[in-house]
């Protein structure tokens, strides 16, 4: 579609330059995609190549050997992560869902706006700063590092995501369902829990899972809350190992065997996160008769 008022030769010249620019732009865009995807492919490739050989039964069932010795595993770190994540979820999920219900059912006012704003602000706080606060609130009081402190830090990080998603999903439930329930003489609290949450279940669970996947790999807030541990620990008030923490410690150490184990740990971490996400997706899809979103 060239400019038809210019003489023929000039017409062709303008067209050519513009076409070159168009092709250059396309080439640039395509190359950015390639450049961006390359590290992703590389990371996954290295995780598999360097990690797969080391993820064996010993790795998954043993605790670390003293520094410099070969062998041992990250069993206590995996267990510790599970413990800390459980504490974090127990604290953060009900809190987030409760706040989300409030925003959806009662929150069309200034106070609700404030909660939404604060939730967004909390989302952007660096995780290490949250670790400092958990340290101040829990560790200083207990006088030692603990799994509880780690759980508290992770809970704080989960709440904003869960709150926003729960609110969005509840607002998607059509008002006609609320009216049907009220019309039957079902009290408000029962309506919200049994009808609205039921209908929005898959969406709410997706939000919880997103928050969970995000905190499962977090290291910074655990550095001075859970702190890490060479041995097994199931107590809430003692320092606990965690998978991301262990990977960090091993990676920056000078020992080759620990480097090898760091790769294995990283592979296990990614697999655990992805499986958790997939498992929840599966349960949600096949568990209900179908609902909104």
């Amino acid at each position, binding site marked *: 579609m060239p400019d038809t008022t210019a003489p023929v030769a000039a017409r062709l010249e303008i067209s050519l330059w513009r076409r070159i620019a168009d092709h250059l732009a396309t080439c640039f865009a395509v190359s950015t995609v390639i450049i961006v995807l390359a590290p992703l492919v590389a990371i996954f490739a290295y995780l598999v190549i360097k990690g797969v050989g080391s993820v064996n039964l010993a790795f998954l069932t043993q605790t670390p050997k003293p520094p410099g010795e070969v062998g041992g595993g990250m069993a206590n770190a995996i267990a510790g992560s599970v413990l800390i994540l459980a504490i974090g979820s127990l604290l953060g999920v009900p809190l987030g869902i409760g706040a989300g219900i409030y925003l959806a059912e009662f929150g069309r006012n200034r106070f609700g706006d404030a909660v939404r704003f604060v939730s967004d602000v909390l989302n952007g706080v660096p995780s290490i700063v949250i670790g400092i606060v958990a340290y101040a609130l829990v560790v200083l009081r207990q006088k030692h590092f603990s799994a509880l402190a780690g759980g508290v830090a992770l809970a704080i990080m989960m709440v904003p995501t869960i709150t926003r998603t729960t609110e969005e999903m509840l607002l998607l439930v*059509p008002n*006609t*369902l*609320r*009216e*049907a*329930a*009220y*019309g*039957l*003489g*079902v*009290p408000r609290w*029962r*309506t919200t829990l*049994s*009808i609205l949450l*039921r*209908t929005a*279940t898959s969406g709410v669970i997706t939000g919880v899972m997103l928050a969970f996947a995000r905190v499962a790999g977090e290291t910074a807030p655990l550095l001075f809350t859970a702190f890490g541990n060479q041995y097994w620990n199931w107590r809430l008030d003692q320092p606990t190992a965690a998978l991301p923490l262990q990977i960090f410690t091993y990676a920056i150490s000078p020992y080759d065997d620990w480097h090898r184990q760091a790769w294995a740990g990283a592979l296990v971490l990614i697999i655990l996160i992805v499986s958790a996400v997939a498992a929840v997706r599966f349960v949600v899809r096949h568990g*209900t*008769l*179908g*609902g*909104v979103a």
Partner: protein
Amino acid sequence: MGVGIQVEKLNAWYGKTQALHEINLNVQANHATALIGPSGCGKSTFIRCLNRMHETTPEARVEGKIKIGEFDAYEGTSATKLRRRIGMVFQKPNPFPTMSIYDNVAAGLKLNGYRDKKHLDDVVEKSLMSSALWEEVKDSIHKKSGASLSGGQQQRLCIARALAVEPEVLLMDEPCSALDPISTGKIEELIFELKAQYTIVIVTHNMQQAARVAEYTGFFLLGRLIEYDKTEKIFTNPSDKRTEDYITGRFG
């Protein structure tokens, strides 16, 4: 048996706008009463005041007296308790999508703590029979979800759901306006059967429907009750000129 409804000096506001002006009305027990009128005349607002559904809108306000049978709908009883004595069927069928047909019908009882399984089975079967849906779904009440039925069936499911709670009054807000003629016909037959046992108030845009199913008809215009009388009289010999104009299609 159904009960009568007495409405005295009912006024209703949405925020600053007054939606209903000084409504006085007596609904006869065990009869069907139709409310007609052009869009926006207040008939839907009116029946929502009867079961206090207007309270779900934040800016709604009501003054006046409404008595359902012997007791006052507003003083001394909570909206929740009131709504168990008055059932409501809405314009667009709204079965609970995540529940089976069985659970939908039983919802009004189960969600209020009623747990007797044997009795629930009886109630569900009886309600579905009362709403003429039993024959069509009896093999799949546990398997199919409420939302998987056709429009007419969904509305009959909603009627069964409302009946399961054994209300004394049944309010219907344009129940057939979203349905095809055959489903509409089935539901009109249903209303004719039901009114022997329940008191029915039905809002409708369709004057022929009012004439077919209701013994009494009230004509609303701009938030006021213009005329309320036996259906036969309203449609053949109305007392008010505005009623006549509406009936003959001059407006609305």
